[in-house]
């Protein structure tokens, strides 16, 4: 199979974060599809219990188990009419309580302790109240999937994509060692946290930021990148600009439109040539739309420049006007691949 260079060769854990409303889950799904194309096996992991992946891929709610949810497109450069083999995307909805039960079983053979502990409120305590433990368990599950061996193929998964907590919490989420060391200086959880950190603080892991070109999400992205850089060894990855809506206007026209100085005569002529009725009213309405959007587009250019100045690779995903569905998801995956993100 032909391999090609991407910006993230060698990265096996892709952590996808972003401000609420920017399409973090959608982009994580698209990235998983993109990474899986050409015969790869990718695990897409959800950690916030929203069942966002199931809704995105239009499958029934997912359990705490790894399930195949989608087939990735075959690599266009491969042989055969379908261009070689497609890949597989598996999904896992990880919750801290199940991860804790699994952890207890794995390390202490406490197979039946789970139910009893749940009744006594210990699970509640351990997973939601004990600070940091929840994050250790969830990042731990991702690290385990990254490290897992498969007898036949070497590695169980070629890559793991995590739909991670939002930008405001990502530093704390990933920096579990610091969180836990304040609490547990020794003990098994500390040991576990250190193992997790050996994956997260390595070139195998990159943290991608999803944003839209508005001031607040861009600011949070820049803050998030700065926060990660300050955490020794956690690597910020790409910045993925979602829902971009470029305007097909020349620069001077764009600037004029943003000032409200649109050449409405020219617009009216075009509408007339297209055979539309009621040209004066239509011209006025469309001119307003165009001027508004031109203002937005100029403001977006400023935000794009701020992101570019941060020095991380930027990718741009188109806005899908008819609403997000599977077809749209494959389009986004193709866009990520064509830009070298996967």
């Amino acid at each position: 199979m032909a391999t090609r260079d991407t910006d993230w060769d060698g990265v096996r854990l892709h952590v996808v974060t972003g401000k609420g409303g920017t399409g973090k889950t959608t982009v994580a799904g698209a990235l998983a599809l993109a990474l899986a194309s050409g015969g790869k096996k990718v695990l897409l992991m959800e950690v916030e219990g929203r069942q966002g992946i199931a809704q995105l891929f239009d499958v029934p709610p997912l359990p705490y188990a790894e399930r195949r949810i989608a087939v990735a497109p075959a690599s266009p450069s491969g042989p055969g009419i379908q261009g070689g083999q497609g890949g597989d995307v598996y999904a896992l909805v990880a919750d801290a309580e199940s991860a804790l039960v699994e952890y207890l079983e794995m390390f202490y053979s406490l197979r039946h302790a789970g139910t009893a502990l749940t009744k006594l409120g210990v699970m509640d305590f351990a997973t939601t109240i004990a600070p940091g433990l929840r994050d250790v368990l969830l990042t731990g599950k991702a690290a385990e999937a990254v490290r897992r061996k498969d007898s036949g193929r070497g590695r169980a998964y070629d890559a793991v994509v995590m739909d991670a907590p939002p930008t405001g919490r990502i530093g704390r989420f990933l920096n579990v060692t610091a969180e836990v060391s304040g609490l547990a200086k020794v003990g098994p959880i500390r040991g576990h946290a250190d193992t997790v950190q050996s994956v997260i603080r390595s070139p195998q892991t990159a943290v991608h930021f999803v944003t839209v070109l508005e001031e607040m999400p861009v600011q949070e992205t820049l803050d998030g990148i700065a926060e990660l850089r300050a955490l020794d060894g956690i690597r910020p990855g790409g910045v993925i600009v979602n829902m971009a809506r470029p305007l097909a206007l020349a620069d001077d026209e764009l600037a004029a439109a943003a000032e409200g100085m649109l050449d409405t005569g020219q617009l009216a002529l075009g509408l007339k040539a297209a055979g539309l009725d009621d040209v004066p009213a239509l011209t006025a309405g469309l001119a307003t739309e165009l001027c508004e959007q031109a203002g937005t587009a100029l403001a977006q250019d400023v935000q794009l420049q701020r992101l570019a100045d941060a020095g991380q690779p930027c990718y741009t995903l188109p806005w899908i006007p008819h609403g997000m569905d599977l077809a749209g998801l494959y389009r986004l995956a193709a866009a990520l691949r064509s830009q070298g993100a996967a």
Partner: protein
Amino acid sequence: MTQAPTVLDVDRLIDDRRIRILVCCGSGGVGKTTTAAAIGLRAAERGRRVVVLTVDPARRLAQSMGLTSLDNTPRPVPGVQAGSAGSLHAMMLDMKRTFDEIVEAHADPDRAAQILANPFYQSLSSSFAGTQEYMAMEKLGQLRRAEEWDLIVVDTPPSRSALDFLDAPQRLARFLDGRLLRLLIAPAKVGGRAYMRVLNAGFGVVTGVLTKILGTQVLRDVQTFVSALDTMFGGFRERADYTYQLLRAPGTAFLVVAAPEPDALREASYFVERLDEERMPLAGLILNRVQRPPAAHLSAARSVAAAETLEAGAPAAYPLAIAALRLHAERMQQAAVQRRVAEHFTAAHPLVPVAEVPAQPDDIHDLDGLRRIGEAFAAVNGSE
């Protein structure tokens, strides 16, 4: 056939002097903070003495209200055109400080110092996910008791689920007052002889497992924390209950904030159903970012067709018209998707009044922007 929702009359809501607390709920990224600020500003400029309580660590409210810092104390917002009757204050919750103050108020100085220095307390008060909601409720109760304002607008914490605001404080209070913590310090104190044996057996498993998971040192910190907190037991539950009751009292109204997107409206649905179960008063849904193309009489299909006609002729001849038609088609498509999503919500909740706020071309970062949003509330009402 689809049914149009009742229009939510925001002005009537904020002019109603009986309403003392407005809680803005919704999932993250739907414009909750902006909505809370815009409502607070509009109410102040209509003569209410308003305080807006925000819990969002991104300090967005601070930016949009021209304040450089919000620090757990209500600060007057400059530039409000409120006349003599109204006023606007804003504050940002400092959850750790609020927690510290509860401890200091309920324990003698020595014990308070002991609790504040405890590593487990420090983690609990600064990073436990439910602490923010609990402290938001606590602060709301304090502001209400202060009687300095006649309207408190609350922007709820940016959690993944709108329901967290209702559930997290009780969860934390249950934990702090709970059997588990008492078990950890003194199993013999709990209950009569009948279930002593069960509890003791349970206790063995519990401490055993917790030691395995967390290590002895963590458990020791927890135990020290709990025994220092012993005098405050009951207090947490009581306070959480007090605020919870406040939310059900007649002077409170909930506004569910959403954007016309499937995820946000699904969360809004859950929340509406939950409020109903709890008999908490829902005022209505604020639907932000609604796409309203000015040239709405030209359909997306006809717009695309017209653009294609021009492109098939001489594409260079009418670039402006082509760009305008393509843009319009996209906006019409988006508007149709939004309408469909909103109709799903209204079909399931026909009685919930809705106020739509048109998508703003620019980011809101000043009082004028907030005022424009407020005017949009009024325009919604005026148009019907």
